[in-house]
């Protein structure tokens, strides 16, 4: 849209979220919605990140703390299971890691260039809490 002329868009700077109609938004998951190019869902803020979260599924207990407290709707939970991170929308704030209650944490922050498989392979061991 970047080069759109004044005569090429909707009057009133009105934006529509979806292509066509959507009957039941609250009952339609994001992957089943037809977003327009104007929904920020279609955009990415991946380049905002300095660090990124990596998800080690083996340690996850699906508590959904990361889902509820993620400000960027970037924790993908389906059927009550945490299944991954939406890396287009994650800004790398690190809240998910902070709220992760497992030991070791199932989410940790790494430099943006870190390799996911490598880091999961070298995931830290369980921390023993000092008494």
């Amino acid at each position, binding site marked *: *849209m970047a080069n759109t002329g004044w005569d090429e*868009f909707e009057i009133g*700077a009105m*934006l529509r*979220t*979806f292509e066509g109609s959507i009957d039941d*938004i*609250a*009952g*339609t*998951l*994001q992957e089943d*919605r037809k977003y327009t*190019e*104007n*929904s*920020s*869902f*279609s*955009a*990415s*803020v991946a380049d*905002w990140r300095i660090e990124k979260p990596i998800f080690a599924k083996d340690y996850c207990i*699906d*508590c*959904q*703390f990361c*889902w*509820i*407290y*993620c*400000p*960027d*709707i*970037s924790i993908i*939970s*389906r*059927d*009550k299971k945490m299944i991954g991170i*939406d890396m*287009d*929308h*994650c*800004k*790398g*704030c*690190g*809240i998910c*890691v*902070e*709220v992760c209650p497992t030991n070791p944490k199932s989410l940790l*922050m790494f430099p943006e260039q870190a390799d996911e498989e490598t880091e999961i392979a070298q995931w830290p061991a369980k921390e023993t809490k000092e008494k």
Partner: protein
Amino acid sequence: MSEMKKIKNLKEFSTSADRFEGANLLCPGCAHSIIVREVLNATNDDLVLSASTGCLEVCTAVYPYTSWDASWIHIGFENGSTAVAGAEAMYNALKNKGRLKQPDRNPKFVSFAGDGASYDIGFQWISGCMERGHNIMHVVLDNEVYANTGGQRSSSTPIGSSATTSPAGRVSYGEKKNKKDMVAIMASHGIPYSAQVAPNKWKDMVKKIQHGMAVDGPVFINAVSPCTTEWKFDPKDTMMLTDLSTDSLVFPLYEIIDGHELNITYRPKNVVPVEEYLAAQGRFKHLFKDEYKYLIKEWQERVDANWAYLNRREEARV
């Protein structure tokens, strides 16, 4: 009346289909969007939303993008409440006239605004909406500062906070006035429901939002929204700060029904000293100088007194 969404636990809640989208332009770690998600996900009903000018508004509807999956309107800084009130009036008119396109829906009208847009510039508009009895919910994203314009004090900014228009300096400890008790003021309108919420206590929040959406009439919700930029803490610590705010009782969680019946909805098992809450934020850093430490003591006394007051109100059932 639509059926209230059943949310027994967080796993169940996590099946919600979000109606607020990522790649918005809020700061990393911003609590605003956590609150918005918890509010929107509390219901399956259709929504008509507004935002007053502020961080949330300028970060979620920046042409050519919108982060909103429900109908949403922004007019100005002061009038988001009246915008949804107008929409609600139209809904009632069209309903009575039989002209709704989807007459079987049961939409909720929710307006979001910051503390500047609610406590200060939008105060009159919100008061008007509350007094007139519109079936709307006004949610304050209370970060105690004009964050959108770079950190000026609002009437929600607490004593001792360093804001850009009430800065701490060689001879000043920053903001001199205590924050306005907006929940009490709004409850005084005799509205059916007003409450203070925090995003860390999501279950309490969802319960209150659902209660607010179920009642007939105006609802006022004040949500603490720790601001990583203006409170000066690391973005990853947003939820830690929220925990400190509720567990130190700086932001006690309670509700006021029909303008008078007060219920405390969260009693921390271990109450955290206010000092810990203050120490976690750069905006209060100067209070830890020797000459201002008395202010920390006063902070604690004030918080204790307020907690005692809330408890007495609850006990008195008046």
